[in-house]
């Protein structure tokens, strides 16, 4: 018998089904499918597809010049890694280098020439290269004709390249042309030693592999200095109890990353590096812990020289006096001096913090003198002279302007300044350059791929290629005891509108009526690099390491110059033969340096960076000290992915932020993470303050680094960073400044 199906039954069925459906997998399956479908739609960014290849190059983001292996999809680099067996690099890149292939897409990238209307905060407007060439050549002509003494200058942060030679050749066309070398140099200790020699040693490198103890005056040995991977390799076994391991003693005011990992950290009062170096040298001499006969023989001014007596100077820095100045205990100073001898070979390095800038000529002289006293030049585990790169150009000196230091240039004298913004890794305070420019209408042209740092203050920006977009040379890292050379290869095509600085200066030369040497006419940088490589082959010196094959070949075994060039074009590095012997160098040296009134200056600076630049502590009781991380001091772009480090984790502090001791911060009424007004005689800025007991009381550590805004598109970045608060002395030193703070 069939029952009649009523409307009520149908409704029950529908209701029951609807309810029961929720107890089946169907809705979950639907949800799952919808979820998967929505996440694979066209609106979700898809990675590119294509043939996967490996291409090779060298990093130019700092002077270390690590070898790079780029994984490419359809020719586009998608990740970078180091070259494992390459000497030094150990297959690792730093965080900055790992994002090098993103720089092309940096939100602040400049791809067309720009000119600034007027004023610092004015916006930039597009212009043509011809506009810039015309303005610059007119300014150069005025400079040349007026006889006013105004200078035309090029600041080259990476000297020694082919492009650098062309700059020098160009400037030789102007009687008042000046070729300027780096403002801040990580190798200042080496340069101080080189310049103190009676007869030039040439460039010095460090035989780190055979060094047992390093006394570092704030050098960021384990945070980007020299060839970072080489230092890491050397430092394996730090804090090890064995006698043979490399021991690092870090003497600096705050507890840096290097100080954290060093065997020992000596917290030094700000600006007292010279006192400690002189105090240590005094103990070594007084206790005759070193070979006094050799020192007397080689030192020009141990007893009495033209600038005074080094022995007499060190006697003024007895352990007790030094302890009172530096804050390091008397016993520690004495035991450290003895340890430097007993645990030799020991070397002493100074400065090198990319944000803090140079230590100052007196401090560097004192550190160089301590190295001389220890007998470090030309010995195993010390400083070794390295040969120059093979000569490939006939370099008549009259056609190449010699290098000058910015500190030797009179204030308000530069009319036209070109800034080659190829990354040096170190900070340049805009105020330092501004001080050297004439007051009325200076012309500053920045060759930069980004609207950042110095470029923000320039009148003109010539967009230059970014890393991996052009041929560039990589010269010997400052710490290397052997000369090396490699090329950074273009793995990407630069956008239209980008100009090679080499080509741009040549255009200016034509417009300004300067005749460049024939070597620089009608050639590209690549042609000149090839000529340099051909010279390597002719000299038959050294070995060449191929990145692709991970194999080393002696240059004399390479069949032809063309074969050698092909190896360079596929990714390779050349390394000179190691020195045949390491015997002490016979050349005599000056312990006091060659500057006038050296002893008096050293004594004055020894009492604390001219007692914090002669500012009374009553009005500004705190000391402001900048710090930075090589390659990330706000001069150049960083990969937008670096926001992981700066923004999303706080692993590194952003530029302009400050760290203060907890007690100091509280005493000044500040809150951790809150804003504070930092004031110096040079100005004031609001900064976010972090409490940190790794910072010495009464010291403000300010960070020189990227601004958060620069990572995000369409946000204007202030060109005047925290360094504008720093007091610049006549030597271009900005590492200590009197300051005060207040809550906002």
């Amino acid at each position, binding site marked *: 018998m069939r029952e009649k199906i009523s409307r009520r039954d149908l409704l029950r069925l529908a209701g029951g089904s609807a309810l029961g459906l929720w107890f089946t997998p169907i809705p979950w399956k639907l949800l799952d499918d919808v*979820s*998967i479908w929505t*996440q*694979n739609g066209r609106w*979700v*960014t*898809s*990675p*590119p*597809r294509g043939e*996967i290849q490996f291409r090779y190059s060298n990093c130019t983001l700092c002077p270390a010049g690590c070898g790079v292996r780029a994984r490419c999809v359809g020719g*586009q680099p*998608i*990740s970078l*890694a180091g070259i494992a067996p390459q000497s030094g690099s*150990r*297959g*690792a*890149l*730093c*965080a900055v280098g*790992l*994002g090098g*292939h*993103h720089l*092309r*897409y940096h*939100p602040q990238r400049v791809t067309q020439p720009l000119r600034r209307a007027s004023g610092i905060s004015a916006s930039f407007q597009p212009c043509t290269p011809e506009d810039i060439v015309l303005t610059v050549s007119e300014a150069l002509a005025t400079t040349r004709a007026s006889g006013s003494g105004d200078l035309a200058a090029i600041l080259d942060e990476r000297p020694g390249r082919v492009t650098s030679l062309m700059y020098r050749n160009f400037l030789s066309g102007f009687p008042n042309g000046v070729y300027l070398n780096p403002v801040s140099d990580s190798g200042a200790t080496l340069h101080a030693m080189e310049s103190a020699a009676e007869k030039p040693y040439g460039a010095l490198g460090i035989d780190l592999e055979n060094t047992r103890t390093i006394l570092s005056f704030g050098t960021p040995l384990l*945070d980007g200095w020299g060839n*970072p991977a080489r230092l890491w390799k050397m430092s*394996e076994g*730090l*804090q090890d109890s064995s006698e043979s391991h490399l021991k690092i003693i870090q003497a600096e005011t705050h*507890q840096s*990353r290097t100080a*954290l*990992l060093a065997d020992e*950290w000596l*917290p030094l009062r700000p600006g007292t590096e010279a006192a400690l170096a002189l105090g240590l040298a005094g103990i070594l001499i007084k206790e005759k812990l070193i070979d006094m006969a050799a020192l007397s023989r080689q030192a020009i001014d141990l007893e009495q020289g033209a600038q005074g007596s080094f022995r007499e100077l060190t006697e003024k820095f007895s352990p007790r006096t030094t302890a009172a100045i530096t804050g390091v205990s008397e016993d520690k100073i004495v035991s450290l001096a003895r340890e430097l001898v007993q645990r030799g070979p020991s070397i002493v390095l100074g400065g090198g913090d990319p944000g803090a800038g140079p230590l100052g000529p007196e401090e560097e002289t004192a550190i160089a003198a301590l190295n001389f006293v220890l007998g470090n030049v030309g010995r195993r585990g010390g400083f070794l002279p390295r040969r120059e790169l093979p000569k490939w150009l006939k370099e008549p000196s009259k056609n190449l302007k010699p290098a000058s230091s910015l500190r030797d240039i009179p204030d308000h004298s530069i009319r036209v300044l070109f800034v080659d913004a190829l990354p040096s890794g170190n900070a340049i305070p805009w105020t330092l350059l501004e001080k050297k420019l004439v007051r009325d209408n200076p012309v500053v042209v920045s060759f930069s791929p980004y609207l950042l740092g110095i470029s923000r203050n320039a009148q003109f920006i010539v967009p230059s290629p970014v890393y991996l977009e052009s041929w560039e040379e990589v010269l010997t890292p400052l710490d290397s005891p052997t000369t090396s050379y490699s090329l950074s290869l273009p793995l990407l095509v630069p956008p239209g509108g980008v100009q090679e600085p080499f080509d741009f200066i040549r255009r200016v030369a034509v417009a300004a009526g300067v005749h460049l040497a024939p070597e620089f006419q009608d050639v590209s940088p690549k042609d000149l690099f090839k000529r340099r490589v051909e010279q390597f082959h002719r000299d038959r010196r050294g070995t060449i390491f191929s990145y692709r094959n991970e194999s080393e070949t002696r240059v004399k075994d390479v069949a032809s110059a063309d074969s050698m060039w092909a190896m360079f074009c596929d990714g390779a590095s050349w390394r000179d033969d190691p020195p045949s012997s390491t015997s002490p160098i016979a050349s005599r040296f000056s312990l006091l340096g060659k500057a006038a009134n050296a002893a008096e200056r050293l004594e004055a600076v020894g009492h604390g960076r001219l007692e914090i630049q002669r500012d009374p502590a009553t009005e500004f009781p705190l000391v402001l000290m900048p710090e930075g991380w090589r390659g990330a001091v706000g001069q150049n772009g960083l*990969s*937008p*992915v*670096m*926001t*992981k*480090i700066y*923004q*999303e*984790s706080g*692993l*590194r502090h952003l530029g302009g932020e400050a760290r203060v001791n907890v*007690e100091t911060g509280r005493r000044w009424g500040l809150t951790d993470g809150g804003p504070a007004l930092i004031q110096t005689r040079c100005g004031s800025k609001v900064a976010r303050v972090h409490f940190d*007991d*790794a*910072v*010495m*009381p009464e010291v403000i550590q300010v960070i020189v680094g990227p601004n958060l805004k620069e*990572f*995000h*598109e369409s946000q204007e970045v202030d060109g005047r960073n925290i360094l504008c608060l720093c007091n610049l002395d006549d030597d271009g030193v900005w590492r200590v400044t009197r300051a005060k703070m207040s809550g906002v």
Partner: protein
Amino acid sequence: MTTPTQKKSRYGMVIDLDRCNGCGACMMACAVENNVPPAHREATDRTGITWLRVYRFNNGLKFPNNRSVFVPVPCQQCGRETPCVSVCPQQAVDVDPATGVVGQMPERCLGCRYCMAACPYHARYFNWWDAVWPPGMEKTLNPDVSTRMRGVVEKCNFCHGRLHAARERAAAAGRDTLQPGEYVPACVEACPARAIVFGDLNDETSEVARLARRPEAFRMLEQLGTEPKIYYLTRQSWVRKVSEDEVQMARKDQTHG
């Protein structure tokens, strides 16, 4: 699922805290390898995405006795009672029995964030915003890893794309097992200090297994019994203490919004 040709592995890491200087290369390499986008303008340390995050802890003493340590914290790859697996209603998290790797399938994720609440290590991250790269930069993405959209959770999976690539290379060479060092995550490859060692903890002869047995090795929050496969090495006793306490504190403080 374990295939008959695959030897069962238990991949893990040993991180030497006495060698880490917090340079951030591991974080950078991780983000590049796994197509983690740059931070959104409004992102903070609570809302950002870092599959591997390096924390800085200190001993709390005053200057000059203050000391800090950098602790890289990826997903701890829990081997027992894996908290995120048991709470996921979507089965978007699982433990691969062949490798011991805790995998996350963002495509299946509904974004309920139960797993984030359950994770004692604070090692899971939620996409608060759609992934956006500066114009053109999407061309630099890794084709072995898909991108994720807003509303899903993601985390470290020991660079699963690299494991697949290594398996393919091994298969092409006629091998059914991976040789030591053939597969390493991006952070391990990138660390300039060689502070991170990776390998098969089941292989008693491997370096990672040897280091994990050292007396100075420890794991985070071992008392929870989750059997993490990330070991840390330090000769500083305060570090061991602080890193355990601090993670608990971090968990209390940070809720990912």
